[in-house]
């Protein structure tokens, strides 16, 4: 059984601040993402979810999603803090 104990004071205020910052950032990212998808609806060929880790494996997935004859000219756009990828 998980044992929860009450806490108060500065740690709670710090936690509320972290949650508020997270929610505000999330809302900004969602709006940015929706706008980019709308602006480039006919252009993107691969989209990885918000928060996706961009790793070597991800890059392989990205290239796999781009037609072979377009790989030399494809634009791979890293959005935000490189946590979203738009290929077009």
């Amino acid at each position, binding site marked *: 059984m998980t044992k929860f104990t009450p806490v*108060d004071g500065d740690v709670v205020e710090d936690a509320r601040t972290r949650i508020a910052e997270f929610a505000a950032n999330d809302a900004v990212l969602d709006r940015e993402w929706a706008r980019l998808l709308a602006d480039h609806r006919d252009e993107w060929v691969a989209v990885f979810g918000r928060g*996706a*880790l961009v790793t070597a494996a991800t890059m392989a997935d990205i290239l796999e999603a781009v037609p072979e004859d377009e790989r030399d000219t494809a634009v791979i756009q890293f959005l935000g803090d490189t946590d979203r990828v738009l290929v077009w």
Partner: protein
Amino acid sequence: MIRGHFKRRGSAPPAPYVTVPVRIAGSHPWTAVDFLVDTGADLTVIHPQDAARVVPNYATRDFDEDPSRRAVGGIGGTSTFVTMTFDLLLVDDEHGAIAATLPLLVAGPRGDVLRNAPSLLGRDILSEFALYVDARTGTVTLTR
């Protein structure tokens, strides 16, 4: 009362989430993680997109050598997890917060199946609360 929220990911129907500040036990600072409320999960798990923000040196950490390593199966397949001890804070909307220190499963960074998966708030934590979820009104609450 701890309040959550509904969030839509891609084309899936909106799902219930609770934002929980977490940290490796005893360390600083806190990092807010959005956990999907998952009554089907035995344990609370942190998936790669959040682990990268919460666990120091996550991408280069050698999960294969970790003695707590174990394979865990789910609907999306089987992936490698390790156990790490975290502090969690569940913030009440009126009366402060409650804290717990407990082991959580952390997905390895090479879990491709789970790369974009949300972290899960499982029954190890949910069982301590009365859970109310109503998508019609966008209400998610945990009450003790």
